């Protein structure tokens, strides 16, 4: 039961992006389409889950002073693993010569290591809880992150390009502003506002 709660809180109530405002850089940087957002979210989830598991199992052996460097090394290693994987398997350009997902995410893949969610969960949750609970927490938070990214990506893709996940709804371009950088800020701002209203409503009921 508790685990279930841990798992679901990351989606709405404690959504890392929309409520806690963590991991904003990749959120903005990789949400120009739904698929990019989703891939980034899943890559982060991968790192989050594994580092949570490892850190929760080794945290007892780590002296306080080297806690952060040790955690960072663990996380950075998983990030590098993700980097390898994506470079190997998600590196296919599209039919019309669109850049591959790996290329589109670009710098944000190595930057998962400084995503506040990952280190934050390691510090706040994994180092204090058991392996299984940490796994669930990592999965919940990670999927919550992916969910937020997917949402933002869909909104931006729909408004900016008239499509979601590549399926075109309107002919031609949408409001190109939404696929360019300023649109990311605007869309996220309004998404956070809506989330806030939703949470208020939930809290009332």
């Amino acid at each position: 039961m508790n685990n279930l709660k841990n798992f679901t809180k990351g989606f709405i109530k404690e959504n890392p992006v929309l409520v806690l405002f963590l991991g904003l850089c990749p959120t903005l940087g990789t949400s120009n389409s739904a698929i990019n957002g989703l891939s980034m979210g899943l890559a982060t989830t991968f790192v989050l889950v594994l580092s949570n598991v490892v850190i929760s199992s080794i945290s007892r052996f780590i002296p306080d002073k080297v806690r952060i460097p040790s955690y960072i090394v663990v996380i950075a290693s998983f990030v590098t693993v993700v980097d390898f994987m994506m470079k190997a398997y998600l590196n296919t350009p599209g039919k019309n010569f669109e850049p591959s997902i790996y290329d589109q995410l670009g710098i944000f893949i190595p930057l998962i290591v400084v995503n506040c969610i990952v280190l934050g969960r390691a510090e706040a949750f994994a180092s204090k809880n058991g392996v299984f609970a940490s796994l669930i927490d990592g999965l919940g938070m990670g999927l919550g992150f992916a969910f937020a990214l997917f949402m933002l990506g869909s909104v931006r893709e729909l408004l900016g390009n008239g499509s979601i996940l590549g399926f075109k709804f309107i002919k031609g371009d949408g409001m190109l502003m939404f696929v360019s950088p300023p649109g990311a800020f605007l869309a996220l701002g309004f998404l956070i506002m809506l989330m806030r209203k939703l949470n208020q409503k939930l809290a009332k009921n």
Partner: protein
Amino acid sequence: MNQIIIYTIASLSILGAVSAIILYFVAQKFKVYEDPRIDEVEAALPSANCGGCGYAGCRNFAEALVKSDNFDGLFCPVGGNKTMEAIAKILGREAVAQDPLVAVLRCNGACEFRPKTTNYDGATTCAIEAALYGGDTGCQYGCLGHGDCVEVCNFDALHMDPVTGLPVVDDLKCTACGACVKACPRNLFELRKRQKKERKIYVACMNEDKGGLAKKYCAVACIGCAKCVKVCPYDAITMNNNLAFIDSEKCRLCRKCVTECPTNAIIEVGFPPRKEPQAEATVQAAQTENTSQDIVSAKKEDISTNLNKEE
């Protein structure tokens, strides 16, 4: 084993070792002491940053707590004794238990008891009106009704009653942080000891004018007749400048003064209804029934006839 793997392992291990060594020695060499308990104490505080403790924020208060030798004069009104105990535990000291307090408004001058004598037409804050003149009623001690206190309350414990035009304290939400006490330019809020079941008896008036003058402008003013002082069996009531004051430390809620008061300036809250409701009819009516205009105007007439008689 592959060469790359060896390089990888070697480089990272060496890097890790080197940074650990450097960090360790530099940390030793450049050590500056900062009390880690400050953070712990800050974490234990409610972080409302209300300033009720007299410090600029919770962090400042935490620093003061850690630095001081004892807790004299240091109290977090929001967290209350529980928080102070927790902090005492962190710092290994005894907390001075303080009685829980609650704010009360010492004015009952609702619109119908206290007719307007002028129209106020400035910015709608009490502070500005108070700086300008004695207020739009004849009583220059009473509530101005612009809600500066509601504005400063961080805990949603105050709201304006649209009928009486006076602020109402929500006892359950009030943390006695004292923000309203500071905000009220008329100094109408008093922090009183909390009694069981949120019962309280207090003089809802701050008018220091002489009886006749006070009564002339407000039907429920304390006229300084001192009847309550005489009737109080516990010496809890004192008179000062034509104004009665009930010490909440001494008051035992016997309610004798309430019945004695000729102007209903003493208010009781949280008691079961009396057998003879006559005595507090006015107050009760004022607080509960007067939603309809007719009653209000009828009451006004009552009061004005009363006033005429008095004069």
